[in-house]
């Protein structure tokens, strides 16, 4: 793949990362608000929401490297009735606008909690629709390795997996910033991390296992498919076998590390700086695994016909 082709993994992975992060963040927010009050959770979610916005912007900029004429990219949004690409662009832009609004509200307007909550959930829905549209684009009869609902499921699972680990990283970063700023509510932030990391790690584990099972199903399906499907399988388990293996090694090492760190943290009943390194490394490994998975997704497809 060249840069032009790498633009697709960059865009899809970053979009799924952004949507998944917002979902995990809003679930964490709901939990923390009930337990620690709105004032604190509004502060805690500020930086993560900004990070989601930056991710979406980078993803959209990255997607333009895939286009021959980026200046005309908006024309692709004109066929909403018939094109999943147009719908993807529509939902992505809508998601971006909602995230921009949400970020502005989070950083500039105190209060308005209900509006922020609604905007967050609206963003999650739009983001989810964007991922759905994005995955539907690949359901092409000419690409038998892609043309399956499993592609949709795979994309959604990636969003969930990346979201769970990314929120962990963002919460640790936010904690560090509060430590540096000598914030009075650092102890409460630690409690939030302590309680949310357990279920975030649980989500990561479940989605990782689901990913593995999904890939097994895909392998069986490709094996039973036509010649192009079997060619794709040969590429996956032949030329790209090292990457295929490395992907799952990285994935389960990452979620394993994340789970272990969350477990130790929960048992020790204390948070210190040392939690950051395992969480960063776990997220890095999971991200590498998912980018490799997406690379394999693009690299192993075989087109039938013209």
């Amino acid at each position, binding site marked *: 793949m060249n840069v032009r082709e790498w633009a697709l993994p960059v865009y899809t992975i970053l979009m799924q990362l952004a949507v998944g992060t917002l979902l995990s963040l809003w679930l964490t927010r709901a939990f923390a608000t009930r337990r620690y009050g709105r004032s604190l959770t509004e502060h805690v979610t500020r930086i993560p929401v900004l990070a989601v916005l930056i991710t979406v912007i980078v993803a959209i900029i990255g997607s333009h490297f895939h286009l021959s004429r980026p200046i005309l990219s908006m024309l692709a949004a004109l066929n909403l009735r018939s094109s999943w690409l147009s719908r993807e662009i529509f939902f992505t832009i809508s998601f971006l606008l909602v995230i921009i609004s949400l970020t502005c509200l989070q950083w500039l307007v105190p209060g308005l909690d209900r509006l922020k909550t609604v905007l967050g959930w609206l963003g999650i829905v739009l983001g989810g629709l964007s991922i759905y549209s994005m995955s539907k684009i690949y359901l092409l009869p000419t690409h038998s390795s892609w043309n399956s609902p499993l592609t949709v499921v795979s994309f959604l699972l990636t969003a969930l997996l990346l979201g769970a680990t990314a929120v962990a990283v963002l919460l640790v970063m936010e904690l560090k910033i509060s430590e540096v700023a000598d914030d009075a509510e650092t102890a409460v932030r630690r409690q939030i991390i302590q309680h949310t990391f357990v279920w975030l790690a649980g989500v990561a584990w479940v989605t990782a296992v689901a990913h593995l099972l999904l890939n097994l199903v895909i392998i069986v399906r490709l094996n039973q498919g036509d010649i192009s499907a079997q060619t794709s399988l040969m590429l996956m388990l032949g030329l790209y076998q090292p990457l295929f293996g490395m992907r799952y090694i990285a994935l389960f090492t990452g979620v394993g590390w994340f789970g272990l760190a969350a477990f130790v943290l929960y048992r020790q009943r204390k948070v210190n700086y040392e939690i950051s390194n395992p969480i960063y490394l776990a997220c890095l490994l999971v991200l590498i695994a998912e980018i*490799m998975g997406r690379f394999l997704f693009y690299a192993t497809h075989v087109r039938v016909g013209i």
Partner: protein
Amino acid sequence: MIAIYLLYGLAFFSLGLAASLQLRHDDDLRLRKQLPWLAAFGFAYAASAWLDMFQTYGANPASGQIINIARMILQPMSGLLLLVFGWGVLTKLSPLPKWTYLLPGLLIVPTAFVITYAATTFVTPSPIEIPIDIWSRYLLYLPGSFMAGIGFLRQWRQQKGLGYSDVAGLMLATGLAFLFEAFVVGLVVPAAPYGPASYYNYNRTVYNAFTGEQIETEEPFGLTNWLDYDRVLEATGLPIQFWRMLSALAVTAFVVKGLAVFDTVRDRQMRALQQERDRAQRLAFEAQLAARQTAENWTEALINISRHIAELNDVDDILLHIVDNGRKLLHSNFMGLAVLNGDAPDLELKCYANDDHARMIDGALKVENPLILETLFRSKSCCFPQEDPPGSFADLCFFVDKPAQTAAAVHLDLDNRPIGALWIARHEGGPYSETDLIWLECLADQVVIAIQHGLMTSQLQSYSIIEERGRIAREMHDGLAQVLGYLNLQVQTLDTLLKRGKQEALRDELDQMRRAIQVAHADVRENILSLRTTLASEKGLISAIDEYLNEFGIQTHIETQFHNEVAGPLNLASLAEVQLVCILQEALTNVRKHAQARCVRVRIAQKLSLNQCEYLLMDVTDDGIGFVEKNGKRSFGLQTMHERALAVGGELVVQSMPGSGTSLICRLPCLSEEKLRKQNLVFQ
């Protein structure tokens, strides 16, 4: 070219050797702790470079394969060692700014993409040693050298801030050398059919990811043929190995030189620390001496005050002494003592001392300063480091124009009752310490003791007056009153005898009356003499005794002899002198009344021991009729004399035989020379 390869490897080997030689220095420099990684990198990279040389020039295919494998292992390994060294230099030499803790979190996404991209390049048809070489440089050498360069540049700024310009210059040079190495070792890579090398070095080229098929496009892409090995050769006329060799030599030279300068600086710092320690020790010693001197001064002052009190000196003198000396010892410009007036609940200044004089206050001068009153009525000692609220230091220093800048005050309590306050003030200088307050409290205790002693002394004087009045009354009752009563009876007898005309009897009665009057007259004169002698002690004891004996002889017609065998001072305590006179008077009264003596001799002598006066001896001997004690009981007069002698630590012995006169020997202890000297100092 082979020579350049050789020197290229040799330069990195030298780096490793120099770094490992520096390890032999046993010290705790933080930079030196990172050197093992640099040494290992130098050796590993040198080996890799020489293997490269063998592979390029003259290796056969079989050994070429082995060399290739060894090189593929050594290259990432050396890169990893450099990365660890760079991380250590960046993070361990000095603490990073806090914001850098966020960098790992921010770099996760780009790092993940780069690593994944790197991983995917290993499954392209190009030879595996090419991606190993390229990614070792991009992912290991480049960040390792870059971090080391930044680390040394941070050291440059830090040393510059500390004023070590020589070290700072070397750190700058080392940092730049590492950045140069980052460029030539980490960023310039061999040509490769994938990015980023391809995008740096070639026109836009698209490769099929799994067939390796190359498709040329017409689209321009900027950075063509930029950081290629050939491009370096073309642009500089020298191969990249030469520049890498140069970077290694620069790094070696500057790191070694830097370590040497670090040693020099550390020695300089050690010397400075040593000097600082010596200075601190000297200051501590001087402070210790000063504290000791202060403690001695205070001890001496407190002993002097106690001696004043013990010697029953005048209370006003003692208080003035306390105030004057206390002011000097506490390095103050003013010290005041105020007591509560018994009649009105006013605090009145009793005495004060300033820089010029110390003085008692005769009239009533009210103290109305709120801080002093608060100290007194709250019974709480306080330091007042500054005037808060403004005006609170007004009326603190009496008879002084200059205002106080700092003050301290303590309360005076007698039997848990506030009786006054003692305070000090400074016009300038630092505030009073807690130690000053403790010393001031000690002085306050002495003031209270002096006042208490003064009260007791006046009570004792009252008791003495009452006792003396009783004695005079007793004497008048036993002597003059008896005689007057007798004379009254005799006058009635004379009246009766006159009425009856008995001239002879009348004459006899008149003779008896004359004798009685003469006895009464003698008693009265003796009493007057006794009173006068006791009160005239200021003349000196010896002359007072001499004068008294002369008067006694004239009044009683008893011959008196006085033998003074003491050449110098008597060395008696004041109280002992008084008791000695009283004993002598009582003894002479007994001689006059009962001894029927013609002559009485008084001798005063001293018992010396080791040139020190041990005791004073007074011997009163008469030639009278003598007496015998009845049933071992002493008369009232003798008992009184015994008690007087015992009261001042002496003893009294009476020896008498009927017809052989009486001898009374009194011994009173003398004060030592040292005690006398101190007593005289106190009085001075």
